């Protein structure tokens, strides 16, 4: 199945991509999508240790499964400023 991944901020500037489609096996989780993303862009291996996973515009857990045509993203800590 295909999953659409949206990239922003550091993920976009380091990979040079703002969106891509990944082919994932049925039953794959957000953790698996992050691993597939790091395989495509080895510069993004830091994503699982820094980011929060998002599925269809909502924060979810790394164990959440994805389904076909989901939109997925990984959110680094958001803007600083006190």
């Amino acid at each position, binding site marked *: 199945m295909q999953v659409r991944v*949206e990239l*922003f*901020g*550091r993920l*976009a*500037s*380091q*990979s040079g991509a703002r969106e891509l489609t990944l082919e994932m096996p049925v039953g794959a989780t957000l953790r698996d999508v992050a691993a597939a993303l790091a395989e495509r862009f080895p*510069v993004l291996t830091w994503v699982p240790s*820094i980011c929060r996973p*998002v599925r269809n*515009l909502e*924060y979810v857990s790394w164990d959440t499964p994805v389904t076909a045509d989901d939109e997925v*993203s990984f*959110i*680094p*800590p*958001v*803007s*600083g*400023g006190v």
Partner: protein
Amino acid sequence: MKLCMQGAVFVQITSDPLDPAPLMRLVEGPDMGAVVTFSGNVRNQNRGREVQYLEYDAYRPMAEREMRAIGEETATRWPCRIALQHRVGRLELGEASVLVVAACAHRAEAFEACRFAIDTLKERVPIWKREVWQDGEVWIEGAADAPVSAGTDASR
């Protein structure tokens, strides 16, 4: 452009310069005795560095959805009408990057509502800033600095 509230909440992400006056007109009303406006502006110094400009990037549909949820939660906790607006793209020193305008019956709750909304926005709305100075740049990720391109070093 005509601005429009949905219920008690207005949210918008825009690349145009921000102006608090239309937002104040949007939320004020005969039952609202206090209107508090917060404007977050681009500062010339950050973490000991001379900032030249900032570039904001957003996950727009999610950011607008989170801003709406924050506005609705705020309006539930403090009876108010509230507008949240964030700018994206390149911003120069002194320009406003975010506006929160809260209108309540009385000032105590208007200050509290405005403060809650901007603090929560900074915690969870997916918007990032790239800070550019004379001889380098970083993404600001909460308390951390993160390298903009792969293979460069940052202070993480």
